[in-house]
């Protein structure tokens, strides 16, 4: 009798599996990223992705990083992102978050953990990469991760091929991202020395930005300014005044330094008159 019951249970399980399997397959196909992590963790992976990005920032500061108990800067981008949008040589450091020690225990305890604000240098920036890769795997829609990783790969680690591959991975997950396109254009312009492809990519980036602006998506004006800045630099390099003038006019509308842009416009007009 028991054998019959066991056999019946086994047959039921088998039948149920054949019924359920197609539904699971359908569910997996509907999932955009289709990764095991996405299936297992759902939306909670975004929280972990932010955590791993913060970990990369902590590594960039060689472990000198605030805890939830410290007076950290609450809002704004991380230093990793700030560096990715600044000119080289930028060295503006915030005041130490630790402040003066409250008592002798805290003063003594500071001997045992990093207390100096420094950044990774001399190729050691590579140490942030595993955490950025992990962050991107967990949240493929976190655009900042691709941009920051690509910046360090192409500027400090001399790995433009890897930067491009990572940006293209990001672009597949975020096809409307003008930030990723801006950085991809930089890889072609500065590293691959292919300005015509770079310019085409930046023009697509501009289109994407304007499309989001028209649909009231509130795109980042700073990125728009950066895209135009790169295009103006290319125009000046190639001496293409026909393209330079409209680019400068567009840049003037958003630039905080309108007077200097106007000066460039006047110069371009003077050259065209000749």
């Amino acid at each position, binding site marked *: 009798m028991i054998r019959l019951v066991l056999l019946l249970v086994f047959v039921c399980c088998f039948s149920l599996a054949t019924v359920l399997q197609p539904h699971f397959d359908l569910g997996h196909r509907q999932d955009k990223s289709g990764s095991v992590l996405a299936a297992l963790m759902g939306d909670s992976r975004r929280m972990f992705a932010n955590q791993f990005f913060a970990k990369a920032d902590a590594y960039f500061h060689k*472990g000198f990083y605030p805890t939830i108990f410290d007076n950290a800067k609450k809002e704004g981008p991380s230093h990793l992102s700030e560096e990715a949008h600044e000119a080289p040589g930028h060295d503006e450091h915030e005041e130490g978050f630790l402040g003066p020690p409250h008592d002798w225990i*805290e003063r*003594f*305890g500071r001997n045992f953990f990093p207390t100096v604000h420094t950044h990774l240098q001399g190729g050691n920036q590579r140490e942030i990469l*595993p955490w950025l890769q992990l962050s991107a795997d967990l949240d493929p829609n976190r655009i900042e991760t691709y941009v920051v990783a690509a910046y360090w790969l192409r500027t400090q680690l001399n790995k433009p091929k890897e930067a491009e591959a990572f940006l293209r991975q990001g672009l597949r997950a975020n096809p409307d991202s003008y930030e990723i396109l801006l950085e991809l254009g930089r890889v072609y312009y500065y590293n691959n020395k292919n300005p015509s492809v770079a310019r085409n990519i930046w023009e697509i980036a501009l289109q994407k930005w304007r499309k989001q602006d028209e649909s009231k998506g509130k795109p980042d004006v700073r990125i728009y300014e950066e895209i135009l800045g790169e295009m103006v630099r290319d125009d000046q390099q190639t001496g293409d005044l026909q393209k330079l003038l409209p680019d400068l006019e567009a840049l003037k509308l958003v630039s905080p330094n309108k007077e200097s842009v106007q000066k460039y416009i006047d110069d371009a007009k003077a050259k065209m008159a000749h």
Partner: protein
Amino acid sequence: MNNVMALSGVVIIEMYRRKDFYVLFVMTALITLILGSMRFFDDDMIVRYLKEVCLLLIWISSLVIAISTTARQIPAERESRTIFPLLAKPVSRAQLIAGKFFGCWLACGLALIVFYLFFGVITASREHAWPMASYFQAISMHWIALGIVIALVLFGSVVFTAPSSNATICFIIVIGLMFVGGHLNKMALVPGMSGKIIYAIYYMIPHLEWYDLRDRIIHDWGRVPWGAWAGAILYGILYSGFLLGAAWAVFRRKTLTV
């Protein structure tokens, strides 16, 4: 002293006969080696994530070994009634406490040497460096921290009846001390009586966070000033002594009949 050493020897033999250490070491090694085999952006010089994971596993493993080994020492002796002939030897109750403490502490020290040797080899295979002074400070500080934890668990084992409850409570206390202990003074900035109470607790608790040199090792910050290292070692020894004294004070008045 001979009695204490004899008791310690028994604890050390017990530890290498049990499977706890081997299982934890194999797991640590396996996870580290699997992570080490991963390549990120075709760069084989990335090492700090590996150091971080390996050191984290070493800390977790060492705490598990220290707490689980220590928590069962006295309750097991009582349960199997071997404590009666042991105390009739004559071995005093103070010697029993000291013997159990040194046994667990030395056993943890041996385990730490194996763990850190593995860590050193893995790190050197990527970084090609052996910062001996930093490693010596890290292992000695870690060992002293485990001494405080073992003394705490021994104290718990004469207060709580079951080893499982003692181990669980001690785990929670140790994790709390490591993550929150050093920040209690910031929490105590609230005005009023509660702030004063939190500050008093801050001064009373053992500051285990001092002994965690992982960030210095991972990010190559070099060694701690020797004066600070010596101060932390002295603090740890004194705190362990205090906890052992408290354990003995409770144990000497405790009725041992089951």
